[in-house]
């Protein structure tokens, strides 16, 4: 059933963000202070007040809605839900918000994402958990971070399909071109292929530049009904479709490394894409700009294949053709993405999608009408969303 057949679409009507800080530099603000600032900015952007808020959605990132409610003095919420996935569940916050609006559980829902790395690092995320009978093997191997574990998938993708380091480099270089004009971006200096190739190997075949930034920051989005959005100051960005999918052959992803042979060299998003396209009646050709979860550059190539922008195994050649640059056939991450702008677990990608569809982006894609936002490869559910500026 398409979204149109199910009635009203929810819309994003406000965006708020803190500055993006290099890891640890948001101190002495707490993560809740960052979240509070993002919420207030988002409400101001939407022309709404704190007392209008009656819902929250998050993904599994460790925030306590009670603390936010206490600190800001939010009066009453009737909807507060968390997508169980980590970064893979990121786009699912928009799914939950749509659900809350469409079922009239709430009228004004805040979607919140934040990261703060004071005294801990996402790059060592696997070591942050206590030892268990299941994860002890990663410790024996010395796999402490997602990038180290995903290097195994990247190497096998190279082995099966002939994917080259030049393709990984192109993903990084394209993100740097985009970030160079964006003041919020942390890595803005243009990069040559020689500089990329000289970057030290951190998890062969991944070099330092294939790893995204580790950033502190918070973002919040205000979601309400399309009808109400028509009376608010910003151009509404409609949530055309969202999907959350978990499959047996993906499971805990790189925490497991026993994905099916077919799934191992993917970003785990094939089933998400299929469902998203079915729900919206849209396909890869209808996407004007793609905000792909780029925590590690090879995963962008795998997502291009998962979402059908090219055939399986051809993602390397696709990016090396120049297709993903500004002005290419499928511009990716015109904000610079996680690789060059900042990493707030995917939420910066939602912000860029909204700015593109409002027509206010720094690197505006001309006549952008539809945007794809994806969660990253992580334990299920994997999620994605398609946003659009026309109903």
């Amino acid at each position, binding site marked *: 059933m398409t979204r149109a057949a199910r009635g009203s679409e929810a819309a994003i009507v406000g965006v708020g963000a803190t500055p993006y800080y290099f890891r640890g530099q948001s101190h002495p603000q707490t993560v809740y202070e960052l979240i509070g600032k993002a919420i207030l900015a988002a409400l101001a952007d939407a022309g709404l007040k704190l007392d209008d808020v009656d819902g929250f959605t998050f993904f599994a990132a460790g925030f306590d809605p009670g603390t936010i409610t206490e600190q800001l003095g939010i009066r009453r919420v009737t909807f507060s839900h968390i997508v169980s996935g980590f970064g893979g569940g990121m786009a699912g916050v928009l799914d939950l918000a749509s659900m809350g609006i469409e079922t009239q559980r709430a009228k004004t829902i805040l979607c919140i994402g934040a990261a703060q790395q004071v005294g801990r690092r996402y790059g060592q995320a696997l070591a942050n958990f206590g030892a268990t*009978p299941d994860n002890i093997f990663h410790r*024996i191997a010395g*796999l402490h971070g997602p990038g*180290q574990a995903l290097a*195994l998938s990247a190497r*096998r993708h190279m082995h099966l399909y002939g994917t080259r380091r030049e393709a990984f480099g192109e993903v990084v270089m394209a993100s740097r071109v985009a970030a160079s004009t964006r003041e919020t971006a942390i890595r803005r200096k243009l990069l040559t292929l020689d500089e990329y190739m000289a970057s030290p190997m951190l998890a062969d075949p991944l070099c330092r530049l294939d790893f995204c930034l580790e950033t502190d920051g918070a973002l919040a989005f205000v979601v309400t009904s399309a009808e109400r959005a028509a009376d608010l100051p910003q151009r509404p960005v409609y949530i055309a479709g969202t999907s959350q999918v978990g499959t047996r052959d993906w499971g805990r992803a790189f925490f497991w490394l*026993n994905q*099916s042979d077919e799934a191992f060299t993917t970003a785990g998003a094939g089933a998400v894409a299929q469902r998203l396209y079915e729900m919206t009646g849209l396909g890869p050709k209808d996407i004007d700009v793609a905000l792909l979860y780029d925590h590690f550059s090879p995963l962008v190539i795998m997502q291009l294949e998962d979402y059908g922008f090219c055939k399986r195994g051809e993602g390397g050649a696709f990016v090396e053709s120049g297709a993903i640059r500004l002005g290419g056939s499928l511009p990716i991450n015109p904000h610079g993405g996680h690789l060059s702008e900042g990493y707030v677990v995917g939420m910066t990608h939602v912000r860029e999608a909204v700015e593109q569809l409002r027509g206010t982006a720094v690197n505006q894609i001309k006549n952008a009408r539809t945007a794809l936002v994806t969660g990253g490869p992580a334990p299920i559910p994997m999620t994605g969303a398609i946003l659009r500026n026309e109903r």
Partner: protein
Amino acid sequence: MSARSVVPDLSALEVPWDVWSEPFWQATAERKLLMPRCTDCGTFRWPAGPFCPECQSQKVSWVPPGQGHIYSFTVLPIQSDDKDAAPRHRVPVLVEFDQAKGVRLVSALIDAPLDGIAIGDAVGVDWIAAANATVPVFRLATPP
């Protein structure tokens, strides 16, 4: 001669296990590598858990998995405070087995030439002592 991957020091590692994974560590204590296979339908599962993901049976048999091969691997530099020290690397490896289809073991490839490792290479098991267990690691089957 090319640099070789390290043999990790696991002497302080405390291996946790539960009722389903305990037979794995009982076998490694005798330097035997066994993997769990569903007694009813023959499907291997990993990690060891309470149910067969194919038929949900709880009956399990522990069997030798056969010859191991490299499914994938990475090479990680080991951080050192001593800038003059020679660089050292560990090699996490994902091993698949010809008699245990569908499961892979995450482990370390030890004492392997860093420029002489390839997907598909045959590997053999070796053993390292942890604080409370004997840990299976792997070596290239035909050392260059």
